[in-house]
């Protein structure tokens, strides 16, 4: 009786997992490791080795790392301030940060395109003030800016959550034992917020590494990221095999970065998250 119920309850999730996670993954592995005739080959993987694609991959890694670091540097102090504020004020400020997320992401990036254009809003204002104009549209800088803008809330919220969970008496205990503000932060508050930092980094780095929308709109056709290269294989070239092969390589990169994160987190994260 109980067993039957379990099957009914578990069933939908198993079907979902199989249909939308496992099967697509197998298909990508299949396409990535076969040629058009269906024969096994490594060539799709090796396609990543062309100078143009390596350049896109390296640029993607640099930009997404940059965006992640800047998001972290911007979000952490804000999260720290928020975690010390009264609940009402926190609700207001976090809502302000989250509202843009309710808008279509395409729309937000389009807005930045309009703002950053050669004769866009920002440059018109700079012109009126007789200030030098800003020509960053269609450069990697514009893409990084778009990434930071788009993904900042994903860094802020997990860090805020982690900081907020820290019992105020734990912080008081550090002061009580003789630590000054700086020592209390580095020895107690920061290590205890690591789980939030780790998930924030993951939630910014992974989408930034794979994005093609942001680079499409803010990089023009001049700057290609690895996301664009893969997208082109599917939508323009129509070569699913090469597209899948490149995807697999990217997945390996993400996997490696996750493992690196976990390694650095081990000293602290293992204890704080294993509750």
């Amino acid at each position, binding site marked *: 009786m109980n067993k039957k119920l379990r099957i009914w309850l578990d069933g939908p999730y198993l079907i979902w997992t199989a249909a939308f996670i496992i099967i697509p993954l197998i298909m990508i592995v299949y396409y990535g490791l076969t040629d058009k005739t269906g024969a096994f080959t490594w060539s799709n993987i090796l396609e990543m080795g062309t100078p143009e694609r390596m350049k896109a991959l390296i640029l993607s890694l640099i930009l997404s790392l940059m965006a992640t670091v800047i998001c972290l540097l911007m979000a952490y102090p804000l999260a720290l301030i928020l975690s010390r504020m009264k609940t009402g004020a926190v609700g207001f400020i976090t809502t302000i940060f989250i509202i843009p997320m309710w808008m279509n992401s395409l729309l937000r990036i389009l807005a930045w395109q309009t703002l950053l254009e050669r004769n866009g809003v920002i440059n018109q204002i700079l012109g009126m003030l007789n200030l030098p104009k800003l020509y960053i549209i269609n450069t990697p800088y514009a893409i990084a800016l778009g990434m930071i803008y788009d993904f900042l809330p994903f860094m802020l919220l997990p860090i805020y959550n982690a900081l907020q969970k820290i019992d105020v008496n734990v912080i*008081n*205990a550090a*002061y009580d*034992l*003789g630590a000054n503000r700086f*020592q209390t932060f580095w020895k107690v508050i920061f290590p*205890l917020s690591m789980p939030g930092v780790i998930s924030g980094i993951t939630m910014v780095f992974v989408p930034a590494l794979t994005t093609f929308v942001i680079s499409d709109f803010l990089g023009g056709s001049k700057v290609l990221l690895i996301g664009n290269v893969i997208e082109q294989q599917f939508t323009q070239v129509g070569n699913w095999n090469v597209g899948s092969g490149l995807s697999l390589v990217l997945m390996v990169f993400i996997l490696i970065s996750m493992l690196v994160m976990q390694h650095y987190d081990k000293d602290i994260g293992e204890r704080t998250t294993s509750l």
Partner: protein
Amino acid sequence: MSNKLIDLQNITKAFDGSIVLDDLNLYIRENEFLTLLGPSGCGKTTTLRILGGFETPDKGRVIFDGRDITSLAPNKRQLNTVFQKYALFSHMTVAENIAFGLRIRKKSEDYIRDKIRYALKLVNLEGFEERTPDSLSGGQQQRIAIARAIVNEPKVLLLDEPLGALDLKLRQDMQYELIRLKNELGITFIYVTHDQEEALTMSDTIVVMNQGYIQQIGTPEDIYNEPQNAFVADFIGDSNIVNATMIHDQLVEIFGVKYACVDTGFGTDKPVDVVIRPEDLELIAVPENEDQSSEEYQKALRKITRINPGYFEGTVSHIIFKGMHYEMEVQAHGFEWLVLSTRMFQVGTKVLMSVDPYNIQIMNKPESEDEKAVSMQEIV
């Protein structure tokens, strides 16, 4: 127990306009086990936080060892706190937790290692160095919190309801542990609790607080036997608190019956509160349909008046067996008297009830100024 170590002078503190402490004066002597006791919201925790440096009083001064430390930061004070719910650093091992304060003070690793071993031995948790706080029980975490505080050799240990989260048996064990620790360390303990039994068991001095005022300061025996007002009497242990009139010295009238007592100096015909502890009431049974002139009744009467010339006639209305004694309610003069006795009286038994003059505790009615502070409705 000699000179004043800490002196709180005229401490006043308000949060969002509501006064938590009102002109509090209190001194704490060296090597004293002092307990701040009171219901939640009485200001005991705020007093402790002011001592620890986590709150600054609006008015008044904190003198520590002759120095004014009112606005000194917590990390510069020679006191350490054991927090409610332990507040251990969950990202560190037990050893790292204990070493925290020593590492901040840049002590040598050899010294730290010795101190950790010493502290763990003191709290009976030898060999727990590499465990994480998550893997410890509540009682063990509490011991680590104490170890973490005492390795810094504070002059005063502040304890904020440290046993509140533990179950009854463990709480009792820890009470003995704390007394032992205090004696071994020879330092001052300032302990905050709402548990009167905890306070009576461990303290040298109890400070009973309510609504920001100190109600009474004294030894556990003083507080229990000679409560100064109805609040203290009601908060410490069970008691029968009734309105009465002091006729003159050593004579008090309760519900129209005159009782001998030992108190003097309350004036004549003055309204007072009377406290009688349930274990001090003495009962003598009289047969139900017995005539007052019968031999049986007269015998009981002689027996009861030997205790006190005044007595009540009442009826047992309720009885519960409590193991070591029976807890009874006796209806007399429209009042339900709580009585503890090792002897059993059936419900419905007619009894004569009296109390030794020595066990009648007379208290002044609260003065108008403090009326709010001792008002009985606030106790719950």
